[in-house]
């Protein structure tokens, strides 16, 4: 019995040594998690994010990996599909932190999926950098900052205020109508802050109508909006519903200017919305024609044969944030990385990213206003809300 125990322990030691020896020859690996929707309405974006992360990691690895605390590491991404579902977001986060032992997580893009994962991140001490999750509650809840949640984009209040400011100031709209998705945090958030800012500036909201995710017919609400005769219609939701509702609005003979947020930009918006979305404006995180993003756009196109979506730019900067934090932390461990992330101050392709310690948001990012002209997104100006 005793000899067997001794043999066993010898074997274990031998195996452990073999493991060390094996690890010493090639660079160690830093596992980074990613999750988002790879199926469902938002699959276009999820696929785009994961592809971008893979591409960037391959580029780092081709250069021999990254230097953390004087040692070279290769980067590896473990990507899961949460189907855009909040419950599934919690499940895959548990899997990434518990089973795969990742050092940090990138994504998700949707606020509704980023909000519920905070307790798991805190328990596992793994930081998360959300990409296009613009709802304030992603990083701050009840006035307290969540220690392991970060983001690379600006937040809803800002987007709603930018849209309201631009509509009132630059487009001269005095009466606005809102159509929003009542079952979606993102849409609710944008609507709330658009409404508050527009009224504060002196405008009136003449109609405030809603629908539920999964709806495809918006004519009852649109007919009601038409009767209220607004100057502008604010549509803070995602491109599929935007295209459908814009088409239906035009079918009802409405020719108001439409305005939206960062849920709009997508190739599919143009192919589905066609003429109906012509002349509309939306707030975005960046200008597609900005020279700063051209290099990444070209690399993505060369590798995957199609254009990158908005999400790609943001996940690109999320990767920059993470690599910077890893290098400054000098340790491959979630807690140290989270500490380093708090003092992030880098230049990303989407703008300057200086994380605020009490918000975990990039502070002072400019928003871009784009207009759809002949099926193209045409940059209007950089606009900051007052």
């Amino acid at each position: 019995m005793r000899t067997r125990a001794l043999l066993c322990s010898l074997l274990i030691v031998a195996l452990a040594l073999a493991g060390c020896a094996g690890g010493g020859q090639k660079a160690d690996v830093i596992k980074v998690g990613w999750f988002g929707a790879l199926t469902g309405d938002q699959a276009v974006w999820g696929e785009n994010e994961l592809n971008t992360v893979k591409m960037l990691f391959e580029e780092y690895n081709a250069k021999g990996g990254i230097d953390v605390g004087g040692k070279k590491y290769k980067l590896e991404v473990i990507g899961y599909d949460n189907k855009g579902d909040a419950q599934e977001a919690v499940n895959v986060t548990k899997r990434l932190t518990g089973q795969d032992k990742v050092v940090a997580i990138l994504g998700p893009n949707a606020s509704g999926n980023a909000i519920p994962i905070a307790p798991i991140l805190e328990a596992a001490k793994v930081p998360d950098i959300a990409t296009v999750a613009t709802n304030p509650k992603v990083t701050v809840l009840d006035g307290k900052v969540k220690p392991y949640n970060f983001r690379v984009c600006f937040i809803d209040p800002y987007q709603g205020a930018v849209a309201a400011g631009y509509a009132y100031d630059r487009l001269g709209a005095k009466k606005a109508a809102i159509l929003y998705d009542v079952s979606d945090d993102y849409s609710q958030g944008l609507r709330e802050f658009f409404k508050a800012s527009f009224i504060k500036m002196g405008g009136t909201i003449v109609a405030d109508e809603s629908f539920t995710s999964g709806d495809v017919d918006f004519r009852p609400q649109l007919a009601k909006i038409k009767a209220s005769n607004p100057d502008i219609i604010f549509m803070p939701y995602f491109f599929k519903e935007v295209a459908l509702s814009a088409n239906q609005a035009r079918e009802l003979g409405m020719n108001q200017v439409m305005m939206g947020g960062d849920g709009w930009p997508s190739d599919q918006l143009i192919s589905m919305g066609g003429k109906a979305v012509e002349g509309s404006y939306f707030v975005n995180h960046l200008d597609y024609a900005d020279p700063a993003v051209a290099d990444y756009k070209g690399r993505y196109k060369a590798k995957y044969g199609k254009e990158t979506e908005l999400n790609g730019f943001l996940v690109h900067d999320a990767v920059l944030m993470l690599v910077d934090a890893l290098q400054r932390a000098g340790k491959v461990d979630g807690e140290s990385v989270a500490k380093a992330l708090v003092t992030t101050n880098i230049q990303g392709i989407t703008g300057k990213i200086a994380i605020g310690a009490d918000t975990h948001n990039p502070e002072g990012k400019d928003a871009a206003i784009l207009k759809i002209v002949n099926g193209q997104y045409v940059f209007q100006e950089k606009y900051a809300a007052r």
Partner: protein
Amino acid sequence: MTQFLQQLVNGLSIGSVYALMAVGYSLVYSIMNFSNFAHGGVIMFGAYFGFFGLTLLKLPFAAAFALASCGTALLAVLIERVAYKPLRDRRAPFLYFIISAMGASILLENIVIATIGPTFRTYPEILAREPINLWGLSIGRLDLIMFFVSAVCLTGLILFIEKTRIGKAIQAAAYNMKACALMGVNTDRVVLIVFALGGFLAGIAGVFFGMKYTVYPQIGNITTKSFIAAVFGGLGSLPGAVLGSVILGIIETLVAGYLSSQFRDLIAFVILIGVLIFRPSGIMGKSAEDKA
């Protein structure tokens, strides 16, 4: 007043989409006494058949329509053979049929996600988007065509069931399948014909849905509402399914237009439940038995 009429037109148009889908549920229910939840998946396939007929095969519109409806008729028959026939042969309880139907529905959705992909697609523009303006109302061209095609199909179906020999057999089987078989009717064939008819209509509904909105793997979820409309109108009754759908469409539209769009579904379904409390078998249902 114009707004009210416009909302009625909108409601009718939404209702006619529900009606084309609801009839498939009622048809199968009338014979088999269970709700064929795979119907939504069949409709979704119809939308994809039509889409690929138009874009990949570059078929003319009518041919794409025929391809979609024949394709889904075959698909519906196939589902019957694979998912329900073995259960029928073993005289399984109806709950098993429903579970099998749900399985088929999940399978269909995931086949599309795995092969064609999860992103949604848009039909090429076949009809001009500009509406027809009539007495100050905007009426979509597609809505008009949809309304007439639905009306023709549904009348044709009702005539088929009332006037032909096979129709008589369907009626008899709906009344009592066992007795019908004892009288020498080949009930197996009757079941197949019913599924083929339901599938055919599903194809038409799918193409219209795709043209009007868009094509994506979760189209089947929309049929929840048409199923509710079928229950409301009286499951098993074809005119009931049509009536229930139109009423649901109009109630939804009027609630959203005049009361509150936030509470549209809530109020619309409270009204429906209210009606079902007083008429448990629906408006035109044949009896007050279990409608699950």
